[in-house]
């Protein structure tokens, strides 16, 4: 009876209640949105790399090296010489080494030059290897293997010829028209930056950079310089020793980082931002709670007779109090349900846009244990704020 009465009472004041409901829904939507993006960003970052013990690049900050080598964000400060790569990869502690060369692009998608090791040893998520959806890995200098999203977005298929440009901008002027690359493989989706990347051999990168019409593709050599190296060690125990050895190489200033450590440094920075966003969204929610309280409070004056009548019928003052609280809780409950639906719709609709433009793989929002925890918090918050109109109604009905 209490809930039915509360529903009927809310329906009776549709106009003002709908406005309060919209405000509340938006605020909860923002809260869920911030939380979801936060989780998804973390997940995206954590999933992007697995099994790599050390990342090596030119001397810069840990985070910068991590960002440009794994996430293709930012730009490298300098290159590493091919000699250093050969020296490091031949050390006895090293199980495998993947050289990568960055700095080129195709229609805003990054192009990396690497070796066959990339397809054999690069891992993401929970130790998952890359797999091909179609075709094979590259073999010749002008072969190219493209990420899943590149294929989808640009509607490329095996055998298509494409041109790469030097530089990362989508409108780069230095398009290497002389040497079209042929798509030989399309990778299966990974939900990581790999999906947005085009992969060529290091020789392929040389072709782009030399941009020489007289170039003989067959005689082209490995490049002199690369951008970074992913290393896998035979034994994890040697990680710190190898890291120190690399950092101390005299011939070239290098930086070796542990991806996990660099990632946690990144979290420390992003946590500040995340927490500010979360605080703001909690404040927005509290503001809309007060909005709901104000809406209900202002209705109490016109409902005085109704409340006194219920008391006359024998309703205890606590019933009146509960009625008001339930009304507020109903608004929040409906808002939570609407926000979840809205989140699902928007994340589904914008999944691809976010993935392509921001590089973050945002999964469609589904109610989870976290949502439940938030729902409890939101309803709790509403209950506390509902004390204000609840008490007002209580005292109005008590006086008779």
């Amino acid at each position: 009876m209490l809930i039915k009465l509360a529903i009927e009472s809310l329906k009776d004041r549709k106009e003002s209640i709908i406005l309060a409901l919209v405000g509340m829904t938006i605020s909860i939507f923002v809260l869920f949105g911030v939380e979801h993006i936060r989780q998804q960003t973390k997940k995206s970052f954590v999933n992007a790399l697995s099994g790599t013990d050390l990342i090596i690049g030119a001397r810069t900050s840990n985070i910068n090296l991590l960002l440009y080598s794994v996430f293709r964000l930012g730009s490298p400060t300098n290159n590493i010489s091919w000699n250093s790569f050969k020296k490091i990869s031949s050390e006895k502690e090293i199980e495998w080494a993947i050289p990568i060369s960055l700095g080129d692009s195709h229609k805003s998608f990054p192009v990396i030059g690497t070796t066959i090791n990339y397809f054999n040893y690069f891992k993401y998520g929970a130790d998952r290897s890359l797999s091909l959806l179609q075709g094979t890995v590259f073999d010749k200098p002008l072969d190219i293997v493209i990420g899943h999203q590149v294929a989808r977005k640009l509607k490329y298929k095996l055998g298509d010829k494409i041109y790469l440009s030097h530089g990362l901008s989508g409108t780069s002027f230095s398009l290497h028209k002389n040497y079209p690359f042929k798509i030989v493989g399309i990778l299966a989706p990974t939900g990581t930056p790999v999906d947005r990347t085009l992969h060529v051999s290091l020789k392929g990168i040389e072709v782009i950079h030399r941009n020489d019409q007289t170039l003989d593709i067959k005689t082209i050599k490995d490049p002199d310089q690369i951008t970074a190296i992913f290393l896998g060690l035979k034994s994890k125990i040697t990680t710190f020793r190898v890291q120190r050895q690399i950092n101390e190489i005299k011939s070239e200033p290098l930086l070796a980082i542990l991806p996990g450590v660099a990632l946690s440094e990144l979290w420390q920075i992003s946590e500040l931002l995340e927490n500010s966003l979360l605080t703001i969204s909690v404040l927005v929610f509290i503001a809309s709670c007060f909005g709901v309280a104000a809406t209900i409070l202002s209705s109490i004056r016109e409902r005085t007779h109704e409340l006194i009548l219920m008391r006359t019928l024998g309703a205890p003052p606590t019933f009146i109090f509960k009625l008001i609280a339930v009304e507020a809780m109903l608004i929040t409950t409906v808002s939570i349900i609407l926000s979840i639906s809205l989140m699902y719709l928007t994340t589904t609709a914008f999944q691809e846009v976010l993935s392509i433009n921001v590089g973050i793989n945002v999964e469609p929002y589904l109610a989870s244990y976290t949502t439940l925890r938030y729902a409890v918090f939101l309803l709790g918050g509403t209950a506390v704020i509902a004390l204000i109109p609840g008490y007002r109604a209580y005292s109005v009905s008590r006086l008779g």
Partner: protein
Amino acid sequence: MIELSDVVFKYASRPDKTVINISNWKVGPAERVLLHGPSGTGKSTFLNIISGFFVPNYGTVNICGKRLDKMHTSKRDRFRAENIGYVFQQFNLVPFLNAIENVKLAMHFQPSKNMRRSDLDDIKKLLQDLNISKSEWLIPSRKLSIGQQQRVAIARAIVGKPKILIADEPTSALDSKNINNFMTILNSLVTSQNITLIYVSHDLNLSKHFTRIEDFSRVNIH
């Protein structure tokens, strides 16, 4: 049925002013009492005392053999729900509920009389007895005429089979035709169910419907 002795009541906000001072006043079972008297003589306060909203500063209030002045608030609420029906001058119904829901709401607060399936039939019969046509049962009560609202209010007040029905100028907003209609129905229901009726009105023309007429200014010597 109702017995007040040496009752004194003052509002907490005006402790110097005695509003109610009744040395002894009794009403027997199934009596139909018309209380009349000028405004400002404390009639509404008096009704609030016998219905257990207000507790007097002194004296005893005995309703159906129970000392209301000794009861705890929550117990008084329950006692009121089970024993006293109340019809106001206006605002008798929750405006957004329909007639049936309003009557059901009254039953909800009577813990010992849990809603049964047959109760809905009782409600419908009662509404029929009160000349509320079927088409008016399911529309929000604010859309009913004042006359219809007051009749639904009787249904709401007596559905729990109270021992006492208190009516505070329930006909003052009605025209003479509706007043007669209202009084006739009220009387027949009250008589058939042996309910004690306390009825407040300025209108002495209603006297013929009552077994006892009381001038409130003689009951309340303040």
